[in-house]
């Protein structure tokens, strides 16, 4: 007999489904600016994730149907696909997703037991193993010297050479973060570097709107109470503050905080990656510490590290600390808070 006799009609699958829903606007904007290639990698990742999940569940002797239906594997797949270049060859997506699901998730005990964010583990493995392939980002359609047909893109993803005289450079470009880093290394100031067409109003041309769409989806999640404000707000504030301090110290060397908000995976991390409940702290105070740390590390790795973005490594580093954070931020239980009225009453 299950007591309570009735429960709230929420479920894991319902939660995951709404998170997926919240990603849709960003995907739409992505397609608008960069063409439909992203849809291919999303589908590839989804199929791989579901297949891997099913195989792993079978191997672990777990019922397949309820776990496949919880959409958590699908969410991992989408997050990973959104973090890697859409024009990446098919095996890159497949390897990354398989690693994320089989190793990062199931080897650690499956849903609910994995200490590291699976999507970020997948991303980290790819960027360490295939740094060059991982840097071929599509240029926004408006900037590309030639535009590829969808069929050509599909062909390229599955290993065909690019048609005719098209070179890879003609259709890809560095991300704004990468571009800025290279320029700064070359002695160009932030202000001058930012004159390039790579940049838009706040972040990168095009990508800033994708970030804005992530923000929109995030606000929907906040509104429907799927996530709480602790993680995203603290992360963004921490990133803003860190970037702000550096920017104030030397605006020629360090970009403005808003630029950091709207470039790279900042918004995606704030609302979709850090908020993964399994790999984030459970206490409110812990969430503040976790997100603040992640924001700080993201900036440091992004600006001073060798990788194009810092979100994945910042997330993974903070994931390691979660058990410790949880342990040291246990809230006071009922009756142990020194409430004023209690003090007066105690003899």
């Amino acid at each position, binding site marked *: 007999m299950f007591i309570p006799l009735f429960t709230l009609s929420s479920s894991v699958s319902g939660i995951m489904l709404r998170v997926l829903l919240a990603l849709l606007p960003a995907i739409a904007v992505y397609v608008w600016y960069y063409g439909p290639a992203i849809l291919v990698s999303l589908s590839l990742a989804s199929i791989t994730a579901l297949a891997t999940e099913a195989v792993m569940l079978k191997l672990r002797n777990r019922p397949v149907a309820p776990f496949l239906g919880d959409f958590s594997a699908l969410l991992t797949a989408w997050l990973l696909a959104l973090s890697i270049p859409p024009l990446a060859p098919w095996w890159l997506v497949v390897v990354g997703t398989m690693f994320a699901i089989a190793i990062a998730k199931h080897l650690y005990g499956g849903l609910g037991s994995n200490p590291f964010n699976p999507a970020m583990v997948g991303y980290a493995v790819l960027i360490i193993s295939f740094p060059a392939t991982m840097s071929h980002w599509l240029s926004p359609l408006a900037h590309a010297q030639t535009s590829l047909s969808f069929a050509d893109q599909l062909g390229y993803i599955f290993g065909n050479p690019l048609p005719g005289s098209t070179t890879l450079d003609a259709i890809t470009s560095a991300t704004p973060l990468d571009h800025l880093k290279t320029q700064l290394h070359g002695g160009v100031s932030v202000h001058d570097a930012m004159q390039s067409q790579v940049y838009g109003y706040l972040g990168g041309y095009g990508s800033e709107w994708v970030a804005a769409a992530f923000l929109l989806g995030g606000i929907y999640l906040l509104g429907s109470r799927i996530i709480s404000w602790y993680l995203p707000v603290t992360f963004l504030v921490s990133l803003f503050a860190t970037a702000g301090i550096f920017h104030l110290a030397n605006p020629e060397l360090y970009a403005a905080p808003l630029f950091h908000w709207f470039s790279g995976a900042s918004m995606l991390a704030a609302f979709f990656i850090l908020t993964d409940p399994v790999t984030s702290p459970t206490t409110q105070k812990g969430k503040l510490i976790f997100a603040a740390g992640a924001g700080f590390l993201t900036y440091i790795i992004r600006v001073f590290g060798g990788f194009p973005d810092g979100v994945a490594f910042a997330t993974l580093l903070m994931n390691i600390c979660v058990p410790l954070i949880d342990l040291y931020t*246990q809230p006071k239980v*009922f009756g142990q808070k020194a409430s004023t009225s209690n003090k007066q009453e105690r003899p």
Partner: protein
Amino acid sequence: MRQLFTFHGGVHPPANKTQSNRTPIMQAGIPEKLVVPLHQHAGNTAKPAVQIGERVLKGQLFGMPEGSVSSAVHAPTSGTVAAIDMQVVAHASGLPDLCVTLIPDGKDEWVPRKQTDYRTTPPAELRNLLRMAGVVGLGGAVFPSDVKLRPGAAKMKTLVINGAECEPYITCDDMLMRERADEIVRGAEMMRHMLEAEEVLIGIEDNKPEAIAAMQQAVQQCGFARMEVVTVPTVYPGGGAKQLIRVLTGIEVAAGVRSIDLGVQCFNVATAYSAHRAVEHGEPLLSRIVTITGNVAQPQNFEALIGTPISVLISKAGARPDTTAHIMGGPMMGIRLPSAEVSLTKACNCIIESSPALFPPPPPAMPCIRCVRCADVCPADLQPQDLYWFARSKNFGKAQEFHLFDCIECGACSYVCPSHIPLVQYYRFAKSEIWANEREKKAADIARERHEFHLLRQEREKQEKQAAKDKAAAAAKAKAEAKADIKPEARPAEPDQIDTLRAIVRETAHPEVVHSDAETKD
């Protein structure tokens, strides 16, 4: 307006109270057979005070309270005692317990009743009267009321009367307040008098406007100046004793702390009513109001004699064939009854008939995803997901460290869990394992002490024997050397030596086992 306080968390499950509170309380009458358990209260089982075959009158003592925390049990009507034996009772275990079976004679003939004026009676005498009248907390915890009325360490400030009735489906307190507000209020005033409390606050959730109006009118009519009916917001579990005390006074009563030591005490409205009947009418606790609801034709409240078979009440409310389980208590905290043949006890405030159509079983449990929806609603500020983890891995020490015993088993966490984990079942499991461990440890400690004393005694006997032998030898010697003037040196073991040994034994034994048997929901 009085300043109210809040507690962390809470949920808003659908109330489902209107099904059963539209008709007045119905008298269930005298059934053919009454089975009255002798252990219906927290504390020790009452000792049987009747014999098989004896004719008893209504209100005659069935069971005598034993020990300081116990309560009396009475014959609910007049008749003949048919059996005193082990019968399955309304308990989650489905195990039998000692019961008195009474065959009513239908005359409903009372023992002589003595009315008492509480104003001229010393509190100690009143407490004994309540104990002998079998008055216990009727909110479900059945803690003997006389024990809760013993003065505490602090000066009593507030007496809280709990009419919140926060759990869905249950309406017995609601109906009692609507129909018998006057007697509740008088009972409350008597309790205030006994505790010498400064004020009485009657907390009622705002979804019971009729009850609030009736109670306010009763307070006004009786002219009790220090009594106030306070409307509190509807939130589950706002009717938990600790939560209501917090809302009304701002005081938080931690686990293992007696609220009376903080100057506040809490009683259920039905308890106040029964206390009034017991003292001013001389009527012991023989019946209670019980809500029969869920899958029945006409959900309603009955006033039924303790010992009435539940099945009788269900059929009066119109049993339905597709009922699969009988739940005692509310939908959030209730327990499944072993069968409908068990009898009504003092603890039983509500019976919910459950059918798969009415309460479809939740989907199978998924792993915990650490979403902390449970922690967000926990009224005790616990981390249910951690407790679940420890309870499941049988890491009881850790569970205790994370305040398992502060959990009031309200079920709010299970209610919101998207993984549909039966969290409370895990906590109940862990708690009863810990209690069993403590019992075992206590028994082992006693055995150790007794064994050590046994060894000590053997040692002493040996010494004594040796001494006797020496003495005999000495005596023989003395006889032989009759003229010599030698006194025997050896003596039986020095008494102070034994005392030292005994002290050592006592030190090595460890009798300090703390048993956290906190009074929870009244």
